[in-house]
């Protein structure tokens, strides 16, 4: 008889043609009541598959090939579907990553939290209502009655996730599975939701299986940690042991790839500004007849980028940092303000001339490359638009691919044949093809796994030193900003609240918001141990 949730030798088979035969291979885990077990892994490691397997909600074509899933000693796998339905929600609760899609947009929040009571209990309407209000109060929503009447779109992302947690905890399940519950949230919200989950879990003695890719979050919440690599648990143990004395090479590589929350050693920075903005203002949603509230995305933004330096633009979602990047690239016209690039008025240059002098790398390498073009063409496109003949442009493309550490034979392939990190290198080569004076990178590593992230950052830093690149680096992640930026500008609600050297901003933050942002970084109390950088390099061409 085991308490909590135990997974024994669980194997899950993938359909033929997948990248490996087993999504999970002989995975054994045990989450005891009152304990938080963090399951850590990179994308494709099978960590979400485990949650689906436990709830018996595997996608079609994927099936359990062996092992047992024990809930309080009872094996769930052979149960009839009707019995399983009585367990889901009542004995095992589930919190999803994206509360905005996990909640039905057409139903009021209160009704959705009431759903488990209606499905699993015979409580009266009044009793259900009282329980719902109590739950919404417990998850820290300021006005439970108001929140119950609201529709999901009327709540913020953090509030929606609180509702998701309320619904998962409604029937006080003994086991809670949370699949990346804070990944879609801003850092300050993430810190609040983590504290909430931890508090509720402690108070109720719930066994919490917390799935995440982020070691910072692990340091924040875990009692024990299991590390999953390609479907195999390679290391399992107490949080302090795994985080500070990782034994398996894969865990060591993952932890070594995490940037410390500290500024990089300062580099000499030129006094001469290559790019500067003054009073940039942009307002969205000022519709002529619309009832929508106008949002000030940029409110008098003035920044300066010294030649050869990297300026980090840091902020949470809605701070205006991506709008700033788009204005610099002339993808959006600002309402007011000026941008000077090398002494020229960037906003008044002809579109083509401006395009040649400023390049961009986007966040999502899956969306920013036209899927129907070959990589060589994608890289050569820029020079060809500006009049270079096809032959020399393609030759240049091959050089650039070599520059970003890709095999030049990549030129003949399509983007979908490459991994996320490789695609981001392609995007980088494409942006560098025009030899821009300034490179704007909008969250270039946010969509990447941490080990790949480290490689792309190292590549960027190397190119910056070799080519003397000046960069505007937009990011929400302070660790990443610390790794690469010479100067940092912190944005909040369309304004730059603090700008200075990375050292000054990280070590002596002046503005209250900067301090709040630094305090919210998950795992700030944990300094990753200094490990030999034994990074397993990603193969250059798959």
């Amino acid at each position, binding site marked *: 008889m085991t308490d909590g949730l135990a997974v024994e030798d669980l194997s899950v088979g993938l359909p033929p043609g997948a990248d490996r035969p087993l999504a999970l291979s002989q995975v054994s885990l045990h989450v005891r009541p009152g304990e938080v077990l963090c399951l850590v892994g990179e994308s494709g490691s099978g960590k979400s598959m485990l949650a689906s397997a436990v709830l018996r909600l595997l996608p079609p074509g994927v099936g359990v090939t062996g092992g047992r899933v024990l809930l309080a000693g009872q094996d769930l796998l052979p149960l009839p579907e009707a019995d399983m339905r009585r367990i889901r929600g009542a004995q095992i609760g589930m919190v999803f990553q994206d509360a905005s899609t996990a909640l039905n947009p057409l139903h009021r929040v209160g009704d959705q939290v009431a759903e488990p009571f209606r499905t699993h209990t015979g409580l009266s309407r009044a009793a259900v209502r009282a329980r719902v209000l109590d739950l919404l109060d417990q998850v820290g929503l300021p006005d439970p009655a108001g929140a119950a009447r609201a529709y999901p779109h009327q709540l913020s992302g953090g509030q929606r996730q609180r509702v998701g947690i309320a619904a998962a905890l409604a029937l006080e399940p003994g086991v809670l599975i949370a699949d990346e519950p804070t990944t879609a949230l801003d850092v300050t919200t993430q810190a609040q939701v983590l504290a909430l989950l931890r508090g509720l879990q402690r108070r109720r003695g719930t066994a919490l299986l917390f799935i995440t890719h982020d070691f910072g979050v692990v340091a924040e919440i875990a009692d024990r940690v299991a590390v999953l690599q390609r479907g195999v648990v390679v290391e399992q143990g107490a949080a302090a042991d795994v985080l500070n004395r990782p034994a398996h090479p894969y865990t060591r590589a993952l932890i070594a790839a995490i940037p410390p929350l500290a500024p990089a050693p300062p580099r000499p920075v030129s006094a001469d500004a290559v790019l500067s903005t003054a009073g940039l203002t942009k307002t969205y949603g000022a519709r002529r007849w619309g009832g929508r509230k106008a949002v000030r995305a940029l409110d008098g933004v003035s920044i300066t980028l010294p030649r050869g330096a990297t300026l980090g633009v840091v902020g949470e979602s809605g701070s205006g940092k991506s709008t700033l990047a788009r204005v610099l*690239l*002339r993808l959006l016209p600002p309402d007011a303000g000026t941008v000077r690039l090398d002494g020229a008025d960037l906003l008044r240059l002809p*579109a*083509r001339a401006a395009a040649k002098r400023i390049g961009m790398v*986007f966040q999502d390498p899956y969306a*920013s490359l036209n899927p129907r073009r070959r990589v060589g063409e994608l890289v050569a*496109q820029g020079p060809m638009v500006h009049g270079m003949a096809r032959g020399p442009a393609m030759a240049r493309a091959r050089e650039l691919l070599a520059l970003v550490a890709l095999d030049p034979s990549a030129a003949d392939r399509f983007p979908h044949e490459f991994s996320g990190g490789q695609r981001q290198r392609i995007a980088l080569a*494409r942006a560098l093809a025009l030899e821009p004076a300034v490179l704007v990178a909008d969250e270039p590593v946010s969509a990447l796994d941490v080990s790949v992230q480290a490689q792309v950052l190292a590549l960027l830093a190397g190119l910056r030193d070799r080519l003397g690149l000046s960069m505007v680096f937009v990011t929400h992640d302070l660790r990443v900003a610390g790794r690469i930026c010479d100067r940092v500008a912190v944005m909040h609600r369309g304004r730059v609240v603090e700008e200075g050297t990375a050292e000054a901003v990280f070590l002596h933050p002046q503005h209250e918001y900067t301090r709040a942002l630094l305090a919210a970084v998950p795992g700030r109390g944990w300094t990753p141990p200094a490990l030999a950088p034994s990074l397993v390099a990603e193969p250059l061409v798959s």
Partner: protein
Amino acid sequence: MRGWAARIGLGLTVLVLLMALSAGWLFPRDPLGLAGRPLQWPGDNARFWLGTDNSGRDIAAQIFHGARVSLLIGASATAIALVIGTGIGALAGYYGGWVDDVLMRVTEAFQTLPNFLLLLVLVAVFGSDIRTVTVAIGLVSWPASARLTRAEFLTLRNRDFVAGCRTLGMGDAAIMLREILPNALPPLIVYASVVMAGAILLESALAFLGLSDPNIASWGNLIGRGRGVLRTQWFVSAIPGAAILLTVLAVSLLGQGVNDALNPRLRRPRA
């Protein structure tokens, strides 16, 4: 291409194509020329295995030659409709604003008129020569493809890769034609089968009313001629009717098959 629907569609389409190609060789004589005693039932006379119509013309010859007409009208009218529709939809979706407003109001004006009525007007004004009929069918069939193209362009124009091309300094025409259009094509190719089936039906309907080109052997003309003897010699109308049914079915099934083949979610399920 997988799935039984697609296979049947492909088989039937190939069959109709073979009929069209072999018409001149199997039936070298003018299909509209007098061939024998009128209104012979299929099987009565070994020379006319599908019988003869009320003017004594060989029905089999008309079916085979009619396949040519139907496919030709279907393909040409579809090409015309798609060129107009894609052009208007692309401009409206890419530029938005007043360009979109103007073009979409024009499209709606076309859509609110029943397209068969509009076709009747066009044929009444410009005559019923086979080329005029084809152009007229194309002119009444484009609005839906314009809306479809517009919807595709509306979502694609905001994609990062389009923004990326703009940051390289690429012009609007190049972005529309070379970057967005290839990504917008799959649903349009599928929709082409719907337009083609519709075009074949429109021509048949026109011919049934006696308003299509009377000097060609089309299936619709044959149905129209059989109308007078529908109660006694129903085969005169039923045989070309079945030919139309099978052709439209073939084109639709083929379109569905292409849709399945082009749909990335069906092609490679992601974990």
